[in-house]
C-alpha cells in the first residue's frame, strides 16, 4: 500500500556520502531514511549530500527527517546538504523557513564541491 522510497548511498570520496532518494519522502518512509543517515554517520562518512532530484513529494514528516539527519551529522562533526530539490519540496522549505537552515544546492556537483574545498 504505502509507496516505498528508493535509497541509494554512494561514497564519492573519503568521509563523504551521497544519498540519493527517489519517490515520496513522507511519514511512511521517514524511519527508513533516518536509518540510512544514521548508518552513513556511524560509518564515519558524515559529510552527507542528499540528492532530492527523484523526490516527487515531501511532507512535514519528510522535513523532520531531513532536520534530524542534519542533527545526527552535525553532532558527529559532519554536515548534511541538500541538492536538486523539485518544486514541491522547495515550496515547503520556504513555507517553513527551513530554507534558512539548509542551503538548497541546484546540483549534486555543487554540493559536493563545497565539501571537497574544505
Amino acid at each position: 500500500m504505502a509507496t516505498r522510497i528508493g535509497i541509494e548511498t554512494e561514497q564519492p570520496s573519503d568521509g563523504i556520502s551521497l544519498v540519493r532518494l527517489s519517490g515520496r519522502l513522507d511519514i511512511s518512509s521517514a524511519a527508513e531514511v533516518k536509518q540510512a543517515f544514521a548508518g552513513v554517520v556511524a560509518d564515519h562518512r558524515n559529510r552527507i549530500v542528499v540528492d532530492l532530484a527523484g523526490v516527487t513529494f515531501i511532507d512535514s514528516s519528510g522535513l523532520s527527517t531531513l532536520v534530524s539527519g542534519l542533527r545526527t551529522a552535525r553532532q558527529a562533526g559532519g554536515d548534511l546538504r541538500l541538492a536538486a530539490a523539485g518544486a514541491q519540496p522547495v515550496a515547503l522549505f520556504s513555507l517553513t523557513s527551513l530554507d534558512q537552515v539548509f542551503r538548497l544546492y541546484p546540483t549534486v556537483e555543487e554540493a559536493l564541491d563545497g565539501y571537497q574545498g574544505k
Partner: protein
Amino acid sequence: MSAATEVIGGPDLLTTTEQHAWRRMMTRQYLIRILILVNFALGIYYLSWRYAASINWDYWPLALALLAAETYSFIDACLFGSSMWRWHRRIGSPAKQGDETVDVLICCYNEPVELVRETAEAALRLKHPSRVYICDDGNNPEMRAMAAEIGSGYLTRSAAWQGQDRHAKAGNLINALEQTEGDFLLILDADQVVLPEILDETLGYFRDPKVAFVQTPQWFKNVPEGDPFGSQAPLFYGPIQEAKDGWNAAFFCGSNAVLRREALSHIGLVNYVRDLRRQLQAILNEATRRLNQVERDLDRRGDLELLAAVRALREPIAEARHGLNSGVPLAELTYRFQRQAQASARSIVDADLASIARDLNDIPGLEDLGDVTDRLTALLEDPEAADRLTSRQASPLQAIAEIRELLLRVDVDRAFEATAIMPFSTISVTEDMATAMRMHALGYKSVFHSKILAHGLAPEDLRTALQQRLRWAQGTIQVMFRENPFTFPGLRLMQRLAYFSTMWTYLAGFFAPVYLLSPAVGLLFGWSPVEAWSSEFFGRLIPYLIVNQLLFIVIGWGITTWRGQQYSLALFPIWIKSVTSAFSSVFLGKKLGFVVTPKTRQGGVSLQLIRVQLICMVVLTVAVLIGLTRLVLGIGEPVPIVINVVWAVFDMILLSVVVSAAFHQPDDEQEALLEESFATLHGRAGTGGR
C-alpha cells in the same frame, strides 16, 4: 391530440398545395392507425393460440426458440406501432427571426483535405450569416492552410485536453463549443455538403424557446444503383423520424442538425451534477471498503500516528455518504470531507514541526537560529500555513496511496477530465442519441424537418459499411445499458418507448438465427416447432403477416424499404457483436475495439466478412435440395416440406443481399471519382431497417 396541432400556423394559413399535402397526410395517418390496431389484434389472435395450443413438445428446444423469436417480433411490432401512432409530416417551416447568430462546426479527424474543403466552401455560401469552423481533431497542417485559404475558421483541441480522455467526436464538439459563441450550432460531418438555405429553413423552429434541436435527413450522393450496402436510410430519415417527432422524440443524429447552445449548456450542467453525485457515491463506497484494509496494514506495521489520522476519516466518509443520499449540496459535502482530512493530518504535522524545532536547538552551530525556531512555533499557530501543510497537496495522509486518491477525487473539480462540464454526452461511442435523450428528459423539444438539405458520402465498400453499422449499434446498446430510457428520469412514457423501440430492434440479432435455421432443421431432420401445420395455423398467421406487410407499405409509401428489410436480418452477426461488445464495455470495463475506418476503399471481394451468412446459405441450400428430393420421391408429408422450402428460399433471398454487396465492384468511372473523394464517415443513417 392529432398531428393537426403540429402543423405550423394551422391548416387555415396554408397555401392550396400545402392544404392538399396536409389532407393527404391526414388520410395516410388514419390509415396507418387503423392498420396498427388491426395488426395488434391479429398479432394477439395468432400469438395467444401459439402459446396455448401449438407448441410441439417433442422438439421443445426448437419450439420454444421459435416462440421466443415470434414474441420478440410481436413486441417489436407493438413498439413500432406505438411510435408510428403519431406519424406526421411538418408542412412548411416557421420564418426565422433573422438576427440569430450561428456557428457552423465541421467535424473532421483524418479525412482528405479536399473533401473537407468542399464541405467548408458550401458552408461559407450559406444565406444566413454565420461563422464556419473546421474542427480538426487530426491537427493536420494542410487542413489549417486550406481553412486559411478559403477564409474558414479552424479549431483544434485546447491545451486542457493534453493527457486527458479525448472522448472522440463528442470531445471535439465540446472543445469547439468552448472556443465559439454563436447562439445556434449547425453540426456537420466532414462530408456533408449543405444547401445554402439549410439555416433559413430550420432557424424559425427555434422561435419556440423550448426547441433544443432541429434534425434534417442524411442523404448520400455517391450511392450506386441498387444501393448494394443499404446506405440510404429513407425509412429512418423519413417516416420513423417523422413519427418520433410526433411524440417530441426525434433523434439527434450527429450531423445535419442545428442545436441551441443554451440547451447544450443546460444538459452539460445538469449532467455534471448527476455524474458527480454518481461518481462520489462510487468513490465513497470504495473508500469505506479500502479503509478497513488500510487500517489493518497500519496496525500491523505499528504506524499508530497514521492509524489514528486515518481512523478519523471514517466519520466524514460516513457523513458524506449519508449527505449524498439526503441531498446535501455536493460542494458542501466534499468541502466538509476535505476539512476533516486536513484536521486529521494536523496532529501529525504539529508533531513533526515540534520535532524539527527540538532538533534545530540541538544542532551544534545553529544555536543562534532563533528566528527559524520562532517561525516554526508561529507556524503552529498560523492557520493559513497549517492549511498549506495539511492541504491535499502536502498532507502526510498522502503517504497512503488509497487515501491520496480519495483526497484527489472527493471534490467537485473533476481533476481527471479536460473540462468539468460536458455538454455532449460521453457515455457512448455515438454521442448523439444520448445527448438528445438528455435534452428530452429536461423538457426540451425537438424537431425533425423532413427536407434533404445536405448531401454526404456513404462508405463504398462492405467492410467500411459494416464497421459503421457496428459502431452505431454499439453506441445505441451502450446507451441502453448506461442510461436506459425506461429508468432515465424526466422522460415521458412515449418518449421512453420511442427510444427503446430503436434499441429493441438491435436485439433482433439473437432471434434471426432461429428464423434462419428453423426451416433448415425441419427439412434436414424433420423437426417441427409446431404441432401441426394446420388450417387453423394458417388462418391465424397469414392475415397477421399480410396486415404487417400492408402497414409497412403504407408507412414506407414512395420509398424503397426492401434493402433495409434485407439488411436488418442479414446483418445479424453484427447486431449480436454490438450487444456483446457493448455489454463488456459497460459492465466489464473492456475497451470497445475502436475501429479506425480506412480512408481508401478496401478493394477485392471480402467473403471473410460474411462467412456466417455464407454458412447459413450453404446449410439452407442443402436443406432445400434434400426437401425437393423428398418431395419428388414422395417421401414424408408434403405440406411441411413445401412450407419449409418456401421459408428457406425467403431466408436466402434476404441473406443474398450481403453476398451481392461482398462482390460489388464499382465501375471505372466511379473508381476515378473515389480516388478524389474518399471519406471516413462519422454520420449516422439509422439501422438497415429502422
